[in-house]
């Protein structure tokens, strides 16, 4: 599935605002809500709430989409966000706000880099994780 590149960028900005609000208010229920948003987006980009908002409200006011990208990197990024927000939600609700803040701050870094620079943190760390933990592979399929 390919998506209009503007949709994940828009979603990243909304996400960054919500994460900043979580940091400022320290509200564990807001963290839970964002956790649910991340889980929905990781499962299916079509059901990602901020993407739906973009398609229904913002896209009709813009020109037609010019560029598309694969859905998998944004979905992977949503999954990474969900992991951070799970830790944050537990931290805030269980009365460990420092844990909540650190985890939310980490998610904010990723969301902001994606929104402002088009930088996909998940994509960047994916190869590093693979090369650190996976066994050697060499199947000789160089394309000349």
């Amino acid at each position, binding site marked *: 599935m390919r998506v209009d590149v503007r949709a994940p960028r828009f979603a990243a900005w909304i996400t960054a605002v919500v994460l900043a609000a979580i*940091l400022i208010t320290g509200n564990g229920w807001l963290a839970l809500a964002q956790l649910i948003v991340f889980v929905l987006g990781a499962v299916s980009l079509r059901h990602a709430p901020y993407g739906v908002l973009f398609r229904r409200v913002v896209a009709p006011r813009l020109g037609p989409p010019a560029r598309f*990208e694969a859905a*998998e990197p944004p979905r992977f990024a949503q999954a990474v966000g969900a992991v951070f927000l799970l830790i944050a939600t537990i931290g805030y609700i269980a009365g460990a706000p420092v844990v909540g803040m650190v985890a939310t701050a980490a998610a904010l*870094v990723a969301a902001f880099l994606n929104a402002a620079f088009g930088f996909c943190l998940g994509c960047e760390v994916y190869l590093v994780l693979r090369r650190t933990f996976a066994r050697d592979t060499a199947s*000789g399929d*160089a394309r000349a």
Partner: protein
Amino acid sequence: MPSSPLTGLVVVVAVLVAATVFGVIRRRRDGRFRRYDMPAAAPGTPAGPPDGSAQPLSGSAAPPDGAAARLDGSSRPADRSRRAFHDQGVWAGLGIDTTGSGTALTLVQFSSAFCAPCRTTRVLCEEIARTTPAVRHVEIDAESHLDAVRALDVRRTPTLFIVDRTGRILRRASGAPDRTGLRGAVAESLAAVTATRTP
């Protein structure tokens, strides 16, 4: 024990400032070519880019006498990479001829799936390979060549190496280069390998 909104606001500002600094630095470094060693000096090595239009490298100009020089790109990962593929035949494992009888320059691109910058890099490299007989392009899937990824210290995709016919790395870039930067790096690399060829 609830934390104050002020603490949260301070964290937000600190995070955004740090992330912005990182983003700006990363964007500047993306796609820029770093030089490894210069080849050993030979009589008549050209003093530098003849028309001044080559893409400048980060930091320094070409040494006027063409002597082998360690520039700012020659750091430990580069040394490790160079040793690695000479000692372990990493290039051979990727199907790249290093006996000295192949194409003058090979653009070796490490890519991964779902990587849009990898696609634009491939297009640029194929364009140059098509129009320059001394240059060819090889694309490697990073995930299925983790041994080479580790030996060459590839951390992200796309990572592009400009390699001469003996497998020596002349240039390296991570992130997608632009056409001007790639053409400049290829031109400089061609000049370097041409200058050291025995007639």
